[in-house]
C-alpha cells in the first residue's frame, strides 16, 4: 500500500525483481539481433535463424499468456477462446499481407490465389479497406475486441461463469474454426493465408525484416507487461481480484462485476489479436487449425505452469512449454503428448502457483 505514494516510474519498477525482468527482455531484444545478424555463421555465439523463429513465436505466445493471466489469473475466468482471438488478429493482419502479395501470386491475379480458384471476380465486402496498413492495424484489435465485447456482454450479463463460461467459449472457438475451414467464407479455407511477400512494400523474407519483427514483438511484450502491471496495481485491478475471490461479495458491496469483467475480457482479447498479428508474418502462415480447441487449452496451461496471478510467470510458462514442444517434436515426436498431458496433471495437482510458486517455495526453504 505504501507504494501508492511513490512516483509512477519508481512504483512500477519499485521492486528489484521487476527491474530484472524488464532488463532481461530488453537485453534479449538487443542481443538476439546482434548475435544473429552481426556474429557470423559458425561462430559459437551465433544465434541460428531456427532459434530466432522459435524466439519470435515465444514472444507472441507470451503476450497471449499474459492476456490469459489477466482474465484467468486475476479475474478467475478461464477462457478457452483465446486461441480464437489470437487467430482473428492473425487473419486480420493476414488480409493486409495477402493484399501486399499483389500480382506475384501463382495465378498473377489481383485477387489471392484461393479466390481465383473459387472463381471469384472481386474481393468480398468484408475485405474492403484491408489494403491500408493502418486500417489493418486497427482491424487487428477491433475484430477480436468487438467479438469479445458482444460475446462477453451476453455471457456476463446472464452471469455465466466457471466451467459453463469455459465451455461456451470453447464452443464459440469450435464454431469459428468450422466457419474458417469453409472455402466460401473467403479466408482461404483449410490452407488459410500463406506465401506472404512483403509488408509496406518491403520484402518479408529477409533477415533484417525478421529481426525487425522480432524486436517489435519484444517491445510489444514489454509494453503489455507494463500495462498489465499498471492494471493489476490499480484499484480496477483490485476489484478484478476481488471478483475472482468472492464475486457475490463484490456485488453486495455495490460494484457491478459486469463492467469490470467485460473490460478486462475485451482488453485481453485485443492483446491476443496484437500477438496474432505479430505472429503471422514471422511464421509466414495462418490457417484455421490455429483455432482448434486444443490450442486454446494449451494457452491455459502456459499460464498454469508459469504461475497464475504473477504476470511474469505465464510468460515463463509460455517459453517453457513452447521450448519443450520444439524440442520434443524434433527429438521424440511421439512422446510430446504424453509430456504435455502429464504437464497438465502435474501443474494442476502439485503446482497450484506454477513455476513462480515453486521458486518461492525453494527460496523459502533455503533462506
Amino acid at each position: 500500500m505504501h507504494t501508492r505514494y511513490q512516483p509512477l516510474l519508481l512504483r512500477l519498477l519499485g521492486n528489484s525483481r521487476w527491474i530484472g525482468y524488464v532488463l532481461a527482455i530488453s537485453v534479449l531484444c538487443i542481443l538476439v539481433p546482434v548475435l544473429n545478424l552481426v556474429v557470423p555463421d559458425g561462430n559459437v555465439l551465433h544465434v541460428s535463424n531456427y532459434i530466432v523463429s522459435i524466439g519470435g513465436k515465444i514472444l507472441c505466445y507470451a503476450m497471449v499468456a499474459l492476456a490469459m493471466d489477466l482474465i484467468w489469473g486475476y479475474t478467475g475466468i478461464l477462457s478457452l477462446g483465446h486461441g480464437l482471438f489470437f487467430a482473428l488478429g492473425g487473419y486480420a493482419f493476414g488480409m493486409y499481407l495477402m493484399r501486399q502479395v499483389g500480382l506475384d501470386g501463382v495465378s498473377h491475379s489481383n485477387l489471392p490465389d484461393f479466390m481465383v480458384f473459387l472463381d471469384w471476380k472481386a474481393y468480398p465486402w468484408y475485405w474492403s479497406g484491408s489494403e491500408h496498413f493502418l486500417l489493418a492495424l486497427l482491424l487487428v484489435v477491433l475484430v477480436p475486441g468487438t467479438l469479445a465485447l458482444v460475446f462477453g456482454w451476453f455471457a456476463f450479463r446472464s452471469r455465466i461463469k466457471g466451467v459453463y463460461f469455459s465451455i461456451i467459449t470453447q464452443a464459440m472457438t469450435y464454431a469459428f474454426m468450422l466457419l474458417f475451414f469453409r472455402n466460401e467464407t473467403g479466408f482461404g479455407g483449410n490452407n488459410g493465408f500463406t506465401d506472404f511477400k512483403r509488408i509496406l512494400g518491403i520484402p518479408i523474407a529477409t533477415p533484417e525484416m525478421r529481426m525487425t519483427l522480432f524486436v517489435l514483438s519484444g517491445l510489444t511484450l514489454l509494453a503489455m507487461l507494463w500495462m498489465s502491471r499498471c492494471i493489476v496495481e490499480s484499484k480496477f485491478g483490485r476489484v478484478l481480484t476481488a471478483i475472482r475471490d468472492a464475486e457475490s461479495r463484490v456485488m453486495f458491496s455495490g460494484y457491478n462485476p459486469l463492467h469490470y469483467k467485460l473490460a478486462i475480457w475485451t482488453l485481453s482479447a485485443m492483446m491476443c489479436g496484437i500477438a496474432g498479428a505479430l505472429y503471422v508474418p514471422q511464421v509466414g502462415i495462418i490457417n484455421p487449425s490455429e483455432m482448434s480447441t486444443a490450442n486454446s487449452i494449451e494457452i491455459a496451461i502456459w499460464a498454469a505452469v508459469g504461475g497464475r496471478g504473477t504476470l511474469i510467470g505465464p510468460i515463463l510458462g509460455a517459453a517453457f512449454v513452447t521450448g519443450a514442444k520444439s524440442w520434443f517434436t524434433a527429438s521424440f515426436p511421439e512422446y510430446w503428448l504424453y509430456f504435455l498431458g502429464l504437464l497438465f496433471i502435474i501443474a494442476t495437482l502439485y503446482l497450484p502457483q506454477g513455476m513462480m510458486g515453486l521458486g518461492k517455495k525453494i527460496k523459502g526453504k533455503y533462506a
Partner: protein
Amino acid sequence: MQIAKIIITCCLALTGLLAGTAHALTVAERLALAAGDNDQRIAALARVVAVGDPGASPFLKSLLDDNVKLVGNKIFVVDAGAAINAATGDHVELPADAEDVVNNNRMRSELGAAIAALDLRSPDAAVRLQAALALRQADAADSTFALVVQAEKTEQDKKIQTILAEIRAGIELHSTDVVLRLKAARELAASTSAEMRQLLVGRLEPGGEADPEVRSAIATSLRALDQRLVYFEVAGTVFTGLSLGSVLLLAALGLAITYGLMGVINMAHGEMMMLGAYATYLVQNLFRQFAPAWFDAYILVAIPVAFILTAIIGMLLERTIIRHLYGRPLETLLATWGISLILMQLVRTLFGAQNVEVENPGWMSGGIELASNLVLPYNRITIILFSLAVLLLVWTLLNKTRLGLFVRAVTQNRSMAGCVGVNTARIDAWAFGLGSGIAGLAGVALAQIGNVGPDLGKTYIVDSFMVVVLGGVGQLAGTVYAALGLGVLSKFLEGYAGAVLAKIIVLVIIIIFIQKRPQGIFALKGRSVD
C-alpha cells in the same frame, strides 16, 4: 403405332405364356440379338421378352457384360476366360478374329430392362423385388409391358405388386388411348417414388401430354406425390435428428451425471467413448478369430466389456487424480484435458494413428424402406433403442437403488449428505465410474455408425458439452430434451443452411437461450442452487 406394338407384344406374350415351354434361346434367336443394327436387335429382344422365357436371362446377361463375341455367324460366349461355342455348347479356344458385340447406351438399357422383366417370373421374392426396382428405374421399355401386366396379376407380395402397378401406369401414361392415360395419371397419385415424379414432370413439359383433362389429372397427381415426398422428407429429417440426438444423449448422459454430482467437467469423457469403441474393436477381432460362427453376437459381449473397462479406468482416474481437485472445477477441466491427451496418445501408440475397422453385425446392415426417399437403417434404429435402454437403466439406477439415492443426495447437498452418514468419497468414485461406463457404452454405439480412431472422442465432445449446458444438471429429463432437441434442430438446420452454418446457428441459439435460463432447461430450484 405404339398401341399396335403393345397389342402385338401382348399377344405374343400370351402365346408364349400359354405355351409355357422353358426352352433356351435358339441359335437363330441368339444371332438376331447379337448381330445386326440396333433397331433389329431391339426388335429381336422384344420378341424374346414377349416369349417371357427365364431361360433367356443368362445369355442376355452375358450380352450386357460384353462377354459375347462374334466370328462371322458363329457366337461365342466368354465365361471366366474360356469361350463356349453357343451353337454346339463346346468349350473352344476363342478365335483370334473374334469381334466384340458393341452395345450402345440404348441397347444397354433395353437389355437391362429385358433381364429385369424376365426376372419378374423368378420364384425368389427378393429377386423379383430387385427386378421390379430396376425396371422402375430404367426408362420402362414398352417391350416389357406385357410381362409387367402379367406379373402384376400373379404377384402375391404386396410391395412388389405396388411397384409393378406403378411401372404399368408409367407405361400406360404414354399410351395413345386417352382413357388409359387418364386412368394411369390418377393411379400415379398414390406413388411415392422419385422416378414416377420424374415421369409426371416429363409429361407436363411442352411436347408431352396434349389432352387438357389428362394434363390436369397429371398435375393433381404430381401435387399429391410431391406432398407425400415432402412428408417423407420431413419424417426422414426427424429420424436422422433423433438418431443424432440419441448419440448425443449417450455421450452427454455420463457427463451430466459427473457434472451434476461433482461439478467436474470431464474433458476426457470423449476419450472414454473412444476407449469403448476400441474395446468393441478388440471384442470383434476376438470373435472373428475364435468364434466366427457367433460373429453376429459379438456386440452383446462388447457392451459389458466396454462398460466395465471404461468404468474401471474412470474410477482409477477419480481415485488418483480428480479426487484431489474437488472444489477447483477449472483445474479439474485442465487436468482431465491432460488425461485425454495421454489416453489419445496411448491408443495411437497401441493401435496406430489410422482408423480401425469395426464391422456391423449382419442383422444391423440394411434398413426399412418406407419410401424411395426414406430408408431407416437398422443400425440407426438399434442405436435409438439402445440409448433408450441405457436411459432407462440409468433412470432406474438413480431412482430405484440405494446407490442412486446417495448419488442424488450428494448432488443436492454434499455436506448434508456427508453429515447423515453417506460416504461421499465412495459415492464420487462410483458415480465417476458410472459416468465413464456410460461413455464406454456410447463408444460401442459410435463404433457401429462411424470411424473408430484416436480422435473419435474429440468429434463429439463439444456437442455433448452443449447438451449438458442446455439441459442443466441434476435432472435426467433436461439432458434427454436437450439431446433430442439439439439433434433434431441441427438436422433441420443442416437441410437449409449446410452443416457448418447449422452448427453456428445452434450455438447462437444456445447462447441466447442461456440468457433466459442460465442454468439450463431444468434448473434446480430452491436451496440446492448455489
